[in-house]
């Protein structure tokens, strides 16, 4: 079965990102397809490589990046939500004349249309948020 996952909250602050990760991992390990994980609202904050969580805690961003590497997962950060919250990749950096970017490995920034497309193409869209 083809899943899509929506994550609306940032890492650490709310459990949503953890729940979404465990759900996604379980779906993949059961042999299902997860066609996309879409990060919207504060969820875009999952996609920064600048976090340094305590050493005895999970690294939420790295965990997503690793899962993306393992399963060729499409991690999409919403551009409009990202602009409001300061999540920037090389293209956005150039376009908005910023002096740095902070996107993490395996994440890409794209439009809300990617969420709608996921809703159309997936058999199930599952949301996690606050």
């Amino acid at each position, binding site marked *: 079965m083809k899943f899509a996952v*929506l994550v609306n909250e940032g890492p650490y602050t709310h459990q949503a990102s953890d729940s979404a990760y465990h759900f996604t991992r379980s779906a993949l390990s059961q042999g299902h397809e997860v066609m996309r994980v879409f990060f*919207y*609202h504060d969820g875009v904050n999952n996609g920064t490589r600048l976090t340094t969580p305590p050493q005895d805690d999970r690294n939420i961003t790295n965990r997503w990046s690793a899962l993306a590497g393992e399963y060729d997962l499409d991690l999409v950060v919403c551009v*409009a*939500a990202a602009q409001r919250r300061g999540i920037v990749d090389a293209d956005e950096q150039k376009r908005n004349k910023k002096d740095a970017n902070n996107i993490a490995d395996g994440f890409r920034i794209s*439009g*809300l*249309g990617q*969420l*709608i*497309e996921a*809703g*159309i*193409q997936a058999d199930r*869209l599952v*949301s996690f*948020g606050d």
Partner: protein
Amino acid sequence: MSEEANQSSGQVKQFLYVNRRAPHGSNYAQEGLEVALIGAAFEQDVVMAYVDDGVFQLKSQQDTSDIGTKNFGATYGALGDYDVQTIYVEKESLEMRGLTEDDLMPLVYEDEDDDWEEKPMINIVSACQLAEIIDQSDVVLNF
């Protein structure tokens, strides 16, 4: 949009947006509305439902000038231009909040099948009716 047009333009699903949050205190309302508009631009069948504090999003005469935030209230008026024709508002949620339909923005759409007549978009429904509407949709997103 006719049944044939839907089929010729690819897969069309009914996206139901269940809006349960008050506006302004957080931006779930605004970012939820942005998703709905994009969904409509993708020629999907978009239906909006407002329940719980979500009914406050449709309150008339909202004016954010004194709190200095962007007033996205006008965007609700654009829903009709995006071929969104149906807004369901739960009766119980309105009543609990001391509101009636007269307190809401008079949102309309132009019916292309009826000589572009302006028709009201807002339908007040019971919880029971809304449960049925949720059940009948293809994709449900809560904001």
